[in-house]
């Protein structure tokens, strides 16, 4: 069943405030509306026809809109769902939109569905290039708790989703046992998110509140990276690759950070895979062996990783590094905070992550902002960044201030 949820008319503004010239300005101060200027998180995606789509959460609603001018202005806001007070808007949660086959769009987000605060990932599909979206439905058939979904699309346009699943924890609780964390689950869809199959747990012990990073290998299979739990105590990162819909290869530890913690870091990793097969990984840790944000690469499919390279200026708490391997170039982008300004930085590597350019400051803001996200279009790298005070911007990753 399809429900036309698109806002009436073509001129409904996405922002509650006026545009200032070409630059859309967000709204400072307390913000409770569903419009983009009040967003918690805004996730970009370029469709094949060149439009930039954003999926965002704001004011208890999940919405999407598209832009034909690289994010300077957007078409009408389309409301996908409304979950007042129970939408998952934590630091590592974000709604997401992807294109599967031509003109088919899929949106995923999570919300808390009951008094026990179990979460659920919902999926909504558009078959008409975003004119209308279906009524959101649960991704998983399991009744448990699913959160932090990341969607991916393989070269054939087949959709897959990874998420943090708590069915094993629920089973343990029922049996009177304690079990920390969650599990990594995956499922596939041949019909653009209308139904999912081959749902399975691919790793049984993961941190329960950190995003999962997903990237395609040169063979077109998903690679994924997440914060795992070792021996019930240590929360360090691993990478895994699926070699078929049914099987995930063993998890490989990215670095021996040794972060012994019983906590929710809300701070997941980034992964990008070059056409060479090189895995580029970035993560955050407060381990006994190292603390802060780091980058490493693997040229042997994850069997071993390079010595972790610190990301950014440690004094300014660099976090949530984004990575993009595009052609022969690798980009990293991250956010820092010096007590007054939040700044977005980028570095570029022309040799598959072996050496890196000096860091360049791309933009700044003095209010709330989402994390910077690298995205590519026709071989060029852009940093997508939403801020409350300075609006939404697509920054050329190679820009100099």
């Amino acid at each position: 069943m399809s429900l036309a949820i698109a806002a009436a008319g073509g001129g409904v503004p996405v922002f509650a405030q006026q545009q200032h010239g070409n630059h859309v300005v967000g709204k400072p101060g307390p913000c409770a509306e569903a419009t983009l200027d009040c967003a918690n998180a805004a996730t970009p995606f370029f469709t094949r026809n060149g439009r930039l789509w954003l999926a965002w959460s704001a004011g208890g609603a999940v919405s999407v809109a598209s832009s034909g001018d690289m994010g300077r202005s957007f078409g009408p806001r389309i409301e996908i769902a409304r979950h007042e007070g129970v939408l998952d808007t934590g630091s590592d949660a974000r709604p997401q939109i992807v294109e599967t086959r031509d003109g088919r769009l899929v949106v995923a987000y999570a919300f808390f569905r009951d008094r026990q605060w179990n979460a659920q990932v919902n999926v909504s599909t558009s078959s008409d290039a975003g004119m209308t979206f279906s009524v959101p439905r649960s991704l998983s058939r399991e009744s448990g708790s699913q959160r932090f979904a990341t969607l991916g699309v393989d070269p054939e346009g087949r959709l897959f989703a990874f998420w943090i699943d708590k069915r094993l924890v629920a089973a343990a609780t029922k049996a009177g046992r304690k079990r920390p964390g969650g599990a990594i689950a995956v499922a596939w869809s041949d019909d653009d998110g209308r139904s999912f199959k081959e749902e399975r747990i691919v790793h049984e012990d993961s941190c329960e509140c950190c995003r999962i990073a997903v990237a395609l290998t040169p063979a077109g299979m998903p690679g994924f990276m997440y914060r795992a739990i070792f021996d019930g105590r240590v929360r360090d990162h691993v990478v895994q690759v699926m070699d078929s819909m049914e099987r995930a290869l063993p998890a490989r530890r990215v670095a021996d950070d040794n972060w012994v913690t019983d906590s929710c870091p809300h701070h997941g990793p980034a992964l990008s895979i070059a056409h060479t097969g090189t895995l580029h990984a970035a993560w955050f840790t407060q381990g006994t062996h190292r603390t802060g944000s780091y980058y490493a690469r693997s040229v042997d499919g994850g069997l071993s990783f390079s010595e972790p390279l610190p990301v950014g200026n440690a004094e300014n708490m660099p976090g949530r590094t984004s990575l993009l391997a595009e052609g022969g170039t690798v980009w990293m982008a991250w956010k820092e905070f010096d007590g007054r300004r939040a700044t977005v930085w980028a570095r570029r590597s022309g040799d598959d992550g072996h050496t890196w350019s000096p860091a360049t400051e791309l933009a700044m803001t003095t209010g709330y902002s989402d994390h910077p996200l690298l995205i590519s279009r026709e071989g060029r790298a852009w940093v997508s960044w939403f801020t409350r005070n300075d609006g939404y911007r697509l920054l050329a990753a190679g820009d100099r201030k």
Partner: protein
Amino acid sequence: MISRYMVVACCALVAAANAAAGALAPYRQGDWKAVVASAAGRPLIVHFWGVTCGPCLVELPKWGRFMRERPEARVVFIEMDGTPEKAALRILADAGLGQADNRALISPFDEFTRHEIDPGWPGEMPSTMLVGTDGKVRRISGTADFAALRAWIAAQRAGVRPSR
């Protein structure tokens, strides 16, 4: 003449009244200075937790026990997930913390909010800030070691500087 003690006592009464009335007092970016000032030279513990944070929920009843065993301890609980009050209040009541000094963050949980509390705090939950009699703030990352907490309070009371 309104003494600082009376102001502090008044604020404590308001907070307690809010908790008793079933409301969470608001906490906003910018409020940290006042929280530290309210310690007024006595040891203060500020515990940050979240309704959607699994380890936080497992630990909260232990805070309830701690409060019963140490009724003289000054502890402020601040919920950081921005979830509906009802959920937080129910969880707190179940943990035996219904009468505690409970607050909820009503502005975004971002770097601005974290930095003013502790510039080195990346935001993992739960976290607990120990405000010593010297005004210095120390962070406990993750779930708390309650034996260490009790020792810290005792040392603060005795005027002994912590060894680390």
